[in-house]
């Protein structure tokens, strides 16, 4: 296998990761600002981001700690928000499974919404790439995204409360998720899965500990898989 093939996969991933810089930076900054307002130091804020490296789980944990929720509830809720990482981990097995354990461990650490979503789409488009090329693509997507997650958390913590967080910045994340999903709604199975998930998420919003999200997602997956199995795609 030519090294240039691996590098071209890496740079294709890098380019695909770049658009998310505009989303990651304000969101990471916002976490830094909110963490500082909750009394975390710059070091604690960055340690949080490096250790957990998951936006919605970090925000959920911070929110619940501010509400003085029991530690068990804080940890359980954040991990439930992160349950989808286990699904991403499973979904990446057919592509990255043949790698040696230490490479799988490194890839596992960097599994986030953006790296997973971009890779899953790219692996379907380029089924003939080698496993090393697939890892290179994955790490390419990670490169402009994950380091900025740490750096801008630090910048947000340093800027502290001087940044106004009332400018619709909260909506950068939903828009980013929609931008990732909408172009993939190419089959009836994908559309059915998305529609089911959306409706169940709204119907199950009362379910405690964010479990509604998990049930809604499972419902969407079942509907998508069933539409595919019946060949209605």
């Amino acid at each position: 296998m030519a090294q240039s093939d691996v590098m071209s996969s890496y740079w294709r991933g890098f380019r695909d990761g770049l658009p998310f810089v505009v989303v990651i930076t304000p969101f990471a900054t916002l976490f830094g600002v909110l963490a500082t307002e909750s009394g975390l130091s710059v070091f604690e804020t960055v340690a949080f981001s490096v250790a957990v490296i998951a936006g919605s789980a970090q925000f959920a944990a911070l929110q619940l700690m501010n509400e003085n929720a029991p530690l068990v509830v804080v940890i359980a809720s954040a991990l439930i928000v992160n349950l989808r990482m286990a699904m991403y981990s499973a979904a990446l097995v057919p592509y990255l499974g043949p790698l040696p354990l230490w490479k799988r461990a490194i890839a596992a650490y960097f599994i986030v919404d953006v790296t997973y979503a971009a890779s899953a789409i790219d692996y379907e488009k380029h089924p003939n790439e080698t496993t090393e090329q697939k890892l290179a693509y994955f790490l390419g997507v990670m490169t402009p995204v994950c380091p900025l997650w740490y750096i801008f958390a630090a910048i947000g913590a340093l800027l502290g409360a001087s940044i106004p967080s009332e400018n619709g910045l909260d909506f950068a994340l939903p828009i980013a998720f929609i931008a990732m999903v909408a172009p993939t709604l190419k089959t009836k199975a994908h559309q059915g899965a998305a529609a089911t998930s959306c409706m169940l998420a709204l119907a199950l919003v009362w379910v405690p500990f964010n479990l509604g999200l998990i049930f809604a997602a499972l419902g969407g997956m079942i509907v998508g898989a069933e539409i595919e199995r019946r060949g209605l795609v």
Partner: protein
Amino acid sequence: MIDKTDLWIVIIALAIGSFGLRFLFLGLVGDRVMPDWVMRHLRYTAVAVLSALVTPLVVWPAATGGHTDPVRLVAALSAVVVGYVTKSVYGALAIGAAVMVIAAYWPS
């Protein structure tokens, strides 16, 4: 104010737990072949989880105290339509951001 001991317990627990979830299948299952029905369901994980994650944030945004906000609804729906029609992540991001920015500076 958050207690420092509590904070570090949460950080360490979430670090171990989050890595555990990410490593669970990729690390422990390895290159064993997954059954067809598992793969069929996993194909829809991203679209299902992200849709479920995003819908309540769109319909009941925390920033407006959970009240449905027409601006955020329009921003989200335009992003869906543009993303679906153009198949462009950039296009969807741009239209969503544009709606939010225009609404922020709209003379009311």
